[in-house]
């Protein structure tokens, strides 16, 4: 039997809600693993790519350099890259800070916020901490993205419909109920 196509997933500047929605396909996950193997993904906790992937699912936009590096890796390893959810597509809640200079965000978060206790007034700055980007970028402003799945998060049915269509080479058809948000 030919090797199954691989799917990788990542959560960048997201809340993991989109990943919860992937898991929300419930027992269909059994059908899914008939079709695919998971590669680098929080779902199987694989930290590095093991090979070429058919599909990469990206949750969240890029708020720091680590996100950018991760996204570049995904672009390099995946045939199709899909932005999943509002944060990946538009920046989402994290991008609310885009209207403020970074310094103001830091000051509020680490110095002046009502619950902050920080007598030394330092910002966290361990060398292991990735640098923060001036603003939060949607994924398609950093690398080429092939598809966008809207929603916050997109419903499990939407993700399922998109994945199965792509994996079986059929056109992606999302009925109105799956792309209606009120």
């Amino acid at each position, binding site marked *: 039997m030919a090797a199954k196509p691989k799917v990788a997933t990542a959560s960048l500047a997201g809340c993991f809600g989109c990943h919860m929605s992937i898991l929300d396909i419930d027992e269909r996950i059994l059908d899914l693993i008939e079709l695919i193997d998971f590669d680098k993904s929080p779902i199987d906790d694989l930290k590095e790519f093991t090979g070429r992937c058919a599909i990469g699912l990206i949750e969240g936009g890029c708020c*720091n*350099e*680590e996100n*950018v*590096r991760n996204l*570049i890796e995904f*672009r*390099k390893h995946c045939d199709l890259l899909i932005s999943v959810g509002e944060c990946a597509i538009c920046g989402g809640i994290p991008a609310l800070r885009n209207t403020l*200079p*970074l*310094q103001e965000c*830091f000051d509020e978060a680490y110095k002046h916020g009502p619950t902050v206790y920080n007598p030394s007034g330092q*910002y966290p*700055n361990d*060398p292991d*901490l*990735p*640098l*923060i*980007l*001036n*603003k939060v*970028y949607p994924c398609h*402003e*950093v*690398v*080429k993205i092939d598809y966008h799945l809207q929603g916050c998060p997109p419903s499990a049915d939407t993700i399922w419909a998109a994945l199965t269509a792509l994996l079986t080479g059929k056109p992606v058809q999302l009925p109105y109920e799956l792309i209606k948000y009120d």
Partner: protein
Amino acid sequence: MSAQGAAHIKAICKAAGNDPARLMDIAIAVQKQLGAVSDTAIDLIATHLKIPRVDVDSLVTFYAFFSKTPKGRVIIRLCNDVVDQMNGAAEVAAALETELGIRFGETSPDGAISLEYAPCIGLSDQAPAALINDVPVTHLDSGKARHLAQLLKREGTQARLVKTFGDGNNAHDLIRSMVVNNIRETGPVILAPYTSGSGLKKALALSPAEVIRDIKTSRLRGRGGAGFPTGMKWDFTRQAGGDQRFIICNADEGEPGTFKDRVLMTECPDLIFEGMTIAGYAVGAAEGIFYLRAEYAYLEKFLTAILTQRRKAGQLGQTICGKAGFHFDIRLQMGAGAYVCGEETALISSCEGRRGDPKNRPPFPAQKGYKGCPTSVNNAETLCCVARILECGPGWFAAMGTKGSAGTKLLSISGDCARPGVYEVPFGVKVSDLLKKVGADHTAAIQVGGPSGRMIGPKEFNRIICYDDLSTGGSFILFNKGRNVVDIARQFMDFFVEESCGYCTPCRVGNVLLRNKLVEILAGHGALEDLAYLEELGRTTKLASRCGLGQTSPNPVLSTLENFRPAYEALFKKSRGHEPVLANFDLQAALSQGSILAGRASSIFTPVNGSQP
């Protein structure tokens, strides 16, 4: 507000009959009298007119010529359209700023002078130009600009600014302007001698249905851009129900690079008004509205005087030229600086005393226009043709031009050429022949029909000016080799971003995205895939926009992409070996604040030659 100010407002409202439909006139008068239409003024106007405050507020905030906070007693509006930029508007701007000690968008601390930019003021043939309150000044350079600023500082008024007058009626006592006509070529129809009343008398000898038949036989089509058959429009208007109908003359002429109506109003106002009167007779209207853009306010007194003269001569008013039962008069409606008001439904909104919001079509104005009544909106040039057709006969007119495009067309020529100005040419002229006529030897690109039209390159210079081939409202902006067509498209997009009424998302957002992408590409952050993005976004914006503005605004981008793709490609930097990051994502720039705050450089991405990851 002072008691005196409040009294002024009360008097202004009263003079307009406290009629909400006259809100434009009221706001214009208040702005002029008090230097602003403040929040208090808005309250008072709303009270006098018995309308919701928001109606007044939304009107005041819509038009460029109104302001809530006081501007200078003298407002300098420097035109910054493409042609003015090409002719040194930047140096003029710098000289004004230095001499006045204020920047654009500011008012001098003593409240004497404000400095602003205006998109096209209808003087591209004598650029760079500016309006000093109502007074146009032309052919500026930095020396003249300094001189101008000194004079305005010294005298505090534009009253003694103009020393020499332009040709023809520009020197008329009621105009006294330095603007010149630049009529380079006259033709048999419009820029030809005309005896006032001759067309009208012939029209009144016919029945209204016969007049419409004659206009149909002449095959006259609208000269405002869309080219709709005028006779048919009148027929629809006449046959629509109701007992009140209106004629509107569109003299808004806001399309950058278009200025032929300016010349018509200066030299042939009788012809226009006569055309309106004939139109009124044909469709059964008793009232006509002449909508004049604010930038042409310097012609207002003159035009008003011509109207008065026509009333005295029995060519307007009751029982016109002795024709029992035919009563028709014309009211002048001033605009207040909004390009979209040239769109006929927006123009009607504006005449009704509202924001210049376009309306859904259908119903078309011919069915339901001004105040809900059937209305025919016609361009000033169209109406000139009407008067001449009645005078000389439809056969005479139809014999000129080409099969599908009868008569002559006024062209507004500007940009890189020896003889910019107005040309009356028969339809059927080849673009290359036109270029010879105007003294343009090195033309590399032509913007046909203004920003909403198309940018064409040499391979289309053999096309023919007529409705069936190269259709246009008449504006040709010429560009020589060496001009940056992508930057020109960007400037046109700036214009549309500014002028979109904002009602519908495709236009309000789409134009901004198109413009921003052009800015990125011009900054060297473009990539090949951006071109597909521009094309798709442009098409979507056109498809999904509600009115003609958004349905045409992506044209500068789409037509330059079609005809000047290499100009875009030349702006793409070679890939810096950092695939797959997109060319327009500048990682080092994105990390700049973060690394300052952390006091260290990125350990993940070390800059390659100071560039990308």
